[in-house]
């Protein structure tokens, strides 16, 4: 038995059980206790997730091509992209830092994007496979999402700290802006996704079995 079949849902804010008729209207339903909007499933979850996801994919390209930050010294300006920074740390033997930056800035966003694509496609196809695993993957995107901000924090901290006038100065590059957008877009995308959708086809799956 599923709540959706009984027209029941819970308020996303105060978690009160609310009855919403199955034949809902375009107008939104509101929680009688806290007056928050209630819905059976997040409205337009798949569309929104796709939209944000595509935006993040688009932004991911300039984020990696454009320089993250410019190090301006009296000897000249050096610009580093994410990958050139990773290679720099690899060259200088700082493997741990290289690993952290690579993981946080390159691996995690790609992983997040891939997971969301997988979740969306599987939900849209009404796949019955690995539902528990898919749920775990969704939780993973929520957990690791925040870590991709590490690079942005690094740039922010450097820019704030390194201000020695003509000697050395660090300014953020355009890449940092796009990277920030990538992170925000993937977070919005993950937020827009409704994990309940994974189990919406339980009946059909059970029937198949």
């Amino acid at each position, binding site marked *: 038995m599923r709540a959706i079949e009984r027209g029941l849902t819970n308020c996303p804010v105060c978690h009160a059980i609310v*009855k919403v008729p199955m034949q809902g*209207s375009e107008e939104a339903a509101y929680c009688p206790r806290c007056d928050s909007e209630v819905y059976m499933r997040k409205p337009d979850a798949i569309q929104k997730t796709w939209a944000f996801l595509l935006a993040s994919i*688009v932004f991911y390209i300039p984020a990696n091509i454009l320089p993250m930050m410019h190090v301006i010294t009296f000897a000249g300006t050096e610009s580093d992209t994410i990958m050139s920074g990773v290679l720099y740390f690899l060259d200088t033997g700082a493997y741990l830092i290289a690993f952290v930056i690579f993981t946080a800035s390159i691996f995690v966003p790609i992983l997040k994007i891939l997971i969301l694509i997988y979740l969306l496609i599987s939900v849209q196809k009404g796949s019955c496979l690995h539902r528990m695993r898919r749920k775990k993957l969704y939780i993973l995107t929520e957990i690791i999402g925040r870590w991709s901000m590490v690079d942005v924090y690094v740039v922010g901290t450097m820019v704030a700290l390194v201000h020695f006038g003509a000697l050395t100065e660090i300014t953020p590059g355009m890449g940092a802006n796009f990277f920030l957008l990538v992170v925000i877009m993937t977070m919005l995308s993950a937020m827009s996704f409704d994990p309940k959708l994974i189990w919406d086809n339980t009946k059909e799956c059970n029937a198949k079995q």
Partner: protein
Amino acid sequence: MQNSKDDLSNVEIEEAVWRKKRKAISTVWIVPIVALIVGAWLIIQSINEKGPVIHITFKSAEGVQAEKTVIKYKDIVVGKVTDVDFNKDLSNVIVTAEMKKNMKAYLSEESRFWVMKARVGLNQVEGLDTLLSGVYIVMDPQKGKKSIRDFKGLDVAPVVSTDEKGTSYVLKAQDIGSIGVGSPIYYKKLPAGSVSAYQLSADGKGIDIEVFIKAPYDKLITDHTRFWNASGFSAMLSADGVEIHTESLTSIIAGGLAFDNFDTKRKSHPAAAKHQFVLYNSIKDAKKMHYKRELFFWVYFESSIRGLSVGAPVEFRGVKIGEVVNFSLIGNADNAQFKIPILIKVEPERFMIFPQDTNQSAEPNSQILKKLIKKGFRAQLKSGNLITGELFVDMDMYKDVPEASLKKENGLYLIPTVPGTIETLKSDLKIVLDRIAAVPFEEIGKELQMTIKDIRTGTLPKLDATIQSTDNMMKGANSSMQALQKNYLDSNAEINKKIIRLIEEMTRTSRSVKNLTDYLERHPESLIKGK
């Protein structure tokens, strides 16, 4: 629960169907559309910004790194090196670089590229920033006729960048001396330009030095401007002390040139670019009058010309009118006759002859010359300095000389000569010697002998007696001296003893006087009261 829900939602009822998938397009799609637009804009921009790719060939590209080294103009980045590679036979290095789009118009055959390295010269220090940032390639952009993509890089940075205003000239020099590329050129001790290049002249006999004179100074260059080598210093020792002249400290070490306009009276025209000048060896040389019109003549001498040198003056009554250019020797074995042709140069601008010769050609006016020679115009070798025996060619009008006519030999007129002063000196000397020979030395000798005999027999014995008497006199004087010593100078002499006693007496007297004064000092009242 149900009621309150209905209150809230059923304000306006409209048929709606619950669907898993909505066909309607959510406004959230604006986000990826915006993202796409931004992405597309970035791509278009990067394509737009993608400038032309050029290849520069260098002999060596020391320090040039792909993706690191930049191309700069006026210290602003105008391109970036994308690749550094060898050419096919490994003799050169080809640097591939991507230029900024706005430099496209300047990628012409006139543009130059060179690698900027730190350079510490005597007159300047440059490229110190490359010590920290690494080398960079400098572009000297220039609009040209053709647009090209393959360039040949310069091995050394040019001294003059094309955006500097000024004019280039060529100096003809005998040798390069201590002049190098970048050597300064001074005008009234102000640095007014520099040497931009030099090369062996086309005929291989001299050096062509290309100089660049900076903008305000190039107006001063006229066709009469003199350039000279101002390297090192000149010292002059005179009665006032030592005077040392130099253009600047740099020019002592690094060499330098200088220019000035000495001849301000003559009309001068501004010199065009690449105008050729002669480089003089010193300011003294440069200040000398130099004449445009030069006439060449032959002068034949038969006697020795030892002491005559190339450059020796040709004078007319002491006024210098030219100089000796060359001389040689022509002999005839049949009659053993030798003559020495001397090539002289006369500069007619040094003097004036009336009727004035308006002819400016290299050919002398034969009419004037003929007239002069008829009236006794002759050349003669004269000694300029009796000690060193230096000779010069003197011209003068001589009377009582054999007639001569104007002749031409080897295309040059021959000026007839009269024998040199040395020859006349020789004949004079002979007369003197003859006179000396005429002197009756034998008689004089005999006379002298007789006189000596007279002296020996008559005068000498008398002299002997005189000496004897003098001796006796001296003896007497000696004894008197001895008595004098005994009475007065000996320590036991009576007078000495008396003097000693007198001195003792005086000592005693002075002591008692001293006692008295001492007492008076202590008891001044005793003068009145008594002791």
